[in-house]
């Protein structure tokens, strides 16, 4: 490879880092427009109620208030990624505590918030359904009476309070007869809040022609456009969506939050309106990680060969479908773990309740099922007296093995990942580990995992400007994970120019090619491929110019480092990108633009190998793999679990930017540790009891272990840009399971529920 600055494989400092360390980076809340108003919302006090009437009279008297909107001001238009079941604002009915029922735009934020509280809404309360079990009871209140009429993007099987159901089967159930040991267990996981440091927000402005520009915190500028236009009933061409810097997402900002309301306020007031959620609102009204109820049964032979598994899941989706059908499908699809089974069946039901919607969160259902499945693998190892790593090594998917359902696995370095964490952690000598104090117990735990890397549509436009510099435009949103940098590195490598020759256009629905979003660990892998192809088109066009300038055949030419073409074997015969682009702009051919777009079309299921009912994602990308060992201490006096060290290996295909890959591994580990040990959204009846950072504990610098060793393994994915695949999520999946396995090894107690908070651990140890 070339040694140019920022080449693929170099740990380049990210392209947006100067503005960020100097405090100049502009997030949505940092934008101010002339004549701008501030927005605020009123949330429902009820979990389930009909709205009988509104009275906005008193709210309108607050000095500075410009407009107040309620559900009556919105048409009957619904949005949703899988099931279009959600209005922009509550209309006719409220379905969870906090659901926006009215919104205000005023000259100051304080006036807007005061006025919002003064909107009077008359409700007729309905029975609140707070658990999926209650939702499924005969005669339960129905949360979406019009569910049958909603538009759905796949065969969801919706009825009553059932939002969707999915059922996957591969192999023959007779395989159970080969099982000599069978373990069955029930596991539950808790709701987790994303807590992106930047709360959700939006700024909308309408121009003289009635066209709207919308800045917002999001993971997909195109999903914002689709959601706002669907829920307001306006043509997509009327709305331009742009994305400033985004203060993280983790899934929270993929689908809509309050963008439709901000646009409505701007349309009604005729002035720019900025609406930024408080931290409490961000907890209460956006979305959260699903609580899972899992029954899992695994059978194995006494020699350690896994033979059969079945997994049944009950999922609380909250008040709206959002991404939940996808989370159910993905959780089930990964519930097999990266193992060979003769028989595998996974099915589940997703249910509406009167809670905040649950949705996409890093891992997308995978950390929850892995918490169950990877503990069960350890239990089997204990039953047959085999080392947990040996048992895994014996059953790993390898070589040409396909994933559950039959999708091909292009590259798979899981074996190497497992070997790395085993060796570097000193797994075989773990019995020699001593606790740091006598009242503590200490042990290691392991977990392995796989994750999807990319799906759906993406594109890239590479433009060569007159001076030979390059503008790359993909529409992909960098939410902090570093994709802007990685895509520039890919483009620079493809064109053999130093990375500072490339500048990135920010996501803009007017100018960017379609990009489904920064989700599903997909940007490096899918968008990176489009960048390589678009850059290749630029090279092809530029080469034609070069051949004419140098009076030779294009096949005689080579792309040389630094932005030039030369005749093969004739070092002095060169022509630069600047010379070529000037000719293209002013004399012949027209400006050089390379474009590429595609939709990922590898089938998730092979109908000859498996049966899939209610499959939310028929086409899917490559698979990433990971293995994790943790070294954990448990304080027998307090019940506190402390992770001392962790070794997290990830099959990145190829690390375009190793520094960023390490950042993903380390960040995912600590977020997973929060899920495992301390984070839990708690409902007091229908109301979220801890919507604040005081009461909801995300790990601090003192809680996170310093000794996290990120290990990059490179399998060179044949489909990926320069061999890369996605790593955004893989590092979180196995964390709760590996920690629980370590706790079980240290204490002899198997924990079937998360989080492993001190109280739960201490009670279990005292009960033993």
């Amino acid at each position: 490879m070339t040694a140019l600055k920022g080449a693929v494989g170099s740990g380049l400092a990210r392209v947006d880092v100067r503005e960020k360390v100097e405090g100049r980076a502009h997030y949505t809340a940092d934008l101010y427009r002339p004549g701008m108003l501030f927005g605020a919302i009123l949330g429902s006090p009820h979990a389930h109620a009909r709205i009988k009437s509104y009275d906005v009279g008193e709210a309108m008297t607050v000095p500075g208030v410009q407009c107040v909107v309620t559900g009556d001001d919105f048409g009957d238009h619904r949005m949703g990624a899988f099931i279009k079941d959600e209005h922009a604002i509550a209309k006719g009915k409220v379905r969870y505590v906090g659901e926006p029922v009215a919104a205000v735009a005023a000259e100051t934020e304080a006036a807007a918030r005061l006025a919002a509280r003064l909107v009077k809404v008359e409700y007729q309360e309905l029975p609140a359904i707070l658990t999926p079990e209650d939702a499924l009871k005969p005669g339960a209140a129905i949360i979406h009476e019009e569910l049958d009429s909603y538009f759905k993007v796949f065969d969801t099987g919706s009825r009553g309070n059932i939002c969707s159901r999915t059922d996957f089967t591969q192999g023959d159930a007779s395989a159970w007869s080969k099982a000599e040991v069978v373990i069955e267990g029930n596991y539950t996981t808790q709701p987790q809040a994303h807590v992106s440091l930047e709360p959700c927000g939006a700024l909308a402005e309408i121009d003289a022609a009635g066209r709207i520009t919308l800045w917002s915190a999001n993971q997909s500028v195109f999903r914002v456009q689709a959601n706002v236009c669907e829920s307001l009933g306006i043509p997509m061409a009327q709305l331009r969506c742009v994305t400033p810097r985004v203060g993280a997402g983790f899934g929270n900002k993929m689908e809509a939050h309050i963008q439709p309301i901000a646009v409505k306020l701007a349309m009604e007031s005729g002035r720019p309106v900025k609406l930024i959620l408080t931290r409490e609102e961000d907890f209460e009204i956006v979305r959260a990680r699903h609580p899972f109820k899992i029954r899992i049964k695994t059978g194995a032979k006494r020699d350690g060969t896994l033979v059969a598994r079945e997994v049944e899941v009950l999922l609380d989706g909250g008040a709206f479908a959002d991404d939940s059908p996808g989370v159910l499908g993905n959780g089930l699809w990964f519930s097999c773990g990266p193992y060979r089974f003769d028989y595998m069946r996974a099915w589940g039901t997703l249910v509406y309740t009167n809670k905040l919607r649950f949705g996409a969160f890093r891992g997308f259902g995978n950390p929850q099922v892995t918490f169950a499945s990877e503990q069960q693998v350890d239990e089997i190892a204990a039953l047959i007296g085999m080392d947990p790593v040996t048992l895994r090594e014996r059953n790993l998917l390898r070589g040409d093995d396909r994933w559950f359902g039959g999708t091909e696995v292009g590259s798979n370095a899981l074996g190497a990942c497992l070997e790395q964490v085993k060796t570097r952690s000193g797994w075989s000598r773990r019995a020699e580990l001593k606790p740091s104090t006598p009242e503590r117990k200490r042990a290691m735990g392991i977990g392995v995992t796989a994750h999807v890397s990319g799906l759906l549509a993406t594109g890239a436009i590479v433009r060569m400007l007159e001076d030979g510099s390059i503008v790359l435009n993909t529409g992909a949103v960098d939410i902090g994970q570093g994709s802007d940098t990685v895509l520039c590195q890919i483009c620079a490598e493809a064109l053999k120019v130093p990375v500072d020759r490339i500048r990135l256009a920010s996501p803009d629905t007017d100018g960017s090619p379609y990009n489904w979003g920064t989700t599903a660990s997909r940007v490096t892998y899918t968008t990176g491929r489009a960048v390589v192809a678009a850059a290749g088109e630029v090279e092809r066009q530029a080469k034609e110019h070069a051949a004419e300038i140098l009076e030779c055949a294009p096949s005689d030419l080579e792309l040389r480092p630094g932005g030039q073409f030369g005749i093969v074997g004739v070092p002095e015969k060169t022509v630069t990108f600047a010379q070529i682009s000037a000719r293209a702009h002013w004399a012949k051919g027209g400006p050089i633009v390379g474009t590429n777009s595609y939709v990922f079309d590898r089938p998730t299921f092979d109908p000859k190998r498996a049966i899939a009912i209610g499959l939310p994602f028929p086409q899917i990308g490559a698979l990433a793999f990971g293995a994790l060992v943790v070294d954990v201490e448990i304080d027998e006096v307090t019940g506190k679990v402390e992770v001392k060290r962790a070794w997290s290996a990830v099959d990145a295909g190829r690390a375009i930017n190793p520094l960023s890959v390490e950042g993903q591994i380390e960040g995912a580990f600590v977020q997973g540790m929060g899920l495992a040990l301390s984070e839990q959204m708690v409902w007091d009846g229908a109301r979220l009891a801890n919507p604040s950072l005081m009461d909801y504990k995300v790990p601090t610098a003192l809680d996170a272990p310093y000794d996290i060793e990120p290990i990059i393994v490179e399998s060179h994915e044949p489909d990926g840009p320069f061999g890369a695949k996605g790593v955004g999520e893989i590092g979180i999946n196995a964390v709760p399971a590996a920690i629980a396995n370590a706790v079980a090894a240290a204490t002899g107690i198997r924990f079937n529920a998360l989080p492993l908070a001190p109280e739960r651990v201490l009670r279990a140890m005292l009960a033993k």
Partner: protein
Amino acid sequence: MTVALKINGAAKAVEAGLSDTLLTVLRDQCLLTAAKRGCNQGVCGACTVLVDGRPQRACLTLAANCEGATITTLEGLKRDPTMMRLQKTFASLGAVQCGFCTPGILISAHWLLARNPAPAIDEIRAGLSGNLCRCTGYRKIIDAVAAAGRTAAEAGA
């Protein structure tokens, strides 16, 4: 009421109601947006600024109580040698992802290095424990602060 402040070296009179926080005044009136509103409750640390030289939560500080105070935000430290070293190590060592927590963390790290120019890892962890980061897992931030301390020592600063 009108409050006289010295912000990043310049005298500035701001209009503040009794309930207006320093954070709101800095952002909405002075358009100094490095300090962020992450929780408005004094937990996340993204709004940390220096008030009379000491780190303080701008979201918990009433502007009206700051009469005559010297306020320094990240924007005001762009030529400060310690801050420049921190900015450099944060950039080169991957300590920044989304960047929303970064201004507050840089202010806390700057304060830490002012009192303890070569902090140990655990001292850095403690010094940054009032600033939440949800992206990095903290390790690269801790390394960047340690490296900035070392760089200063090597430069004889």
